[in-house]
């Protein structure tokens, strides 16, 4: 292989890494913007509130939304920025972008992570409502210890599933 080919490959690898780092910085920047910009974060909170209220209504709870609080006659939960899984989604996205894989695989990984964390977060909020109604004594532990840890574990497992399946295949493809 001619010498300049090696240099070209090295340059390509470096450029790819720089691109990934730049995208990662963009994701972190976007995350900070979303968490800071009152309008964006309150829209996300209200969106979650509406989804949770809709699910609770399916179970006959007669839930209504006041701002970012889901309220029924029995109990109420307020969705704040930390409850939206925004930070964890950003960390997941950064991990997917930084891992070597094709851009198609990365898009798939982002979809899997964002969708998975979103779904789990909705389950978390609905379950916290029912814990608040039926087992209020363990609400704090379930909210701040168990569910937070479960979300971390789930995000790690989702990432490993993606990296082990599509990331690995993509690495092989990339070396071809």
């Amino acid at each position, binding site marked *: 292989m001619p010498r300049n080919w090696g240099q070209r490959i090295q340059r390509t690898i470096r450029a790819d890494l720089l691109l990934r780092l730049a995208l990662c910085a963009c994701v*972190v920047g976007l*995350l*900070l913007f979303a*968490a*800071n910009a009152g309008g964006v974060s309150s829209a996300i909170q209200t969106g979650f509130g509406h989804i949770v209220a809709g699910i609770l209504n399916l179970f006959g709870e007669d839930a209504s939304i006041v701002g970012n609080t889901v309220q029924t006659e029995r109990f109420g939960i307020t969705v704040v920025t*930390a409850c939206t899984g925004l*930070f*964890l989604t*950003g*960390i997941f996205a950064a*991990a997917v972008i930084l891992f070597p894989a094709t851009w198609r695989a990365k898009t798939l990984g982002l979809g899997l992570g964002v969708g998975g964390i979103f779904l789990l977060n909705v389950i978390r909020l609905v379950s916290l409502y029912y814990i608040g109604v039926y087992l209020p004594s363990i609400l*704090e*532990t379930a909210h*701040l*210890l*168990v569910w*937070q*840890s*479960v979300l*971390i*574990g789930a*995000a*790690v*497992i989702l990432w*490993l*599933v993606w*990296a*082990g*399946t599509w990331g*690995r295949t993509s690495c092989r493809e990339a070396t071809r």
Partner: protein
Amino acid sequence: MRRGLGRTLARFALIFALSLAALAALWPYAASVYTSAVATVARPVFRLVEAPNATVLDVQGDELSVYRIVGEDRITPVVLFDRYLYFAVVPLLALFLATPGLGVRKRMTRTAFGLVGLFAFHVAYLVTSVELIYAVGPGHSVAGWQVAVRVLWEASPILLWAGLTAGAWKRALLNLRALGSEEAETSSTEPVGAVG
């Protein structure tokens, strides 16, 4: 998903879930000791970053109250942290316990490094978040910094664990890949349509 990977991840998820349940049950008993330890280390750090020293930490059980000195013998409450501020110890330990491919010695060493790292991060988080509260003033917002610190607080167990176990995961994934290649080779050399 390959069967080998699925099995490895299922085992990881099961051990993680069991460890999490056990550690979550134990945490209320350990939280007060951990909170005291963080406060003990944070006090001199506060003295180091503040001139004159303005912060008083008071640990009551597993709750940490932060006060600000506003005059001679006068303090005012700033913020109250509950036992869940340091919950990350629980998922971090569960992640280390569930990681495949680590021997007992390596697992213990890395867990110890992880815990020391997390403890240092918690001290830094306490000091930084209190100083950021002081920094807020009329027309001066530090919301961006507060969010950044909060993101780091949430990411800290994952970052520490990923950093300390990346090698083990890489080995596990490579082994699974080698296993997959062997299986593929075996199946491709078998005669097609052979009858017993």
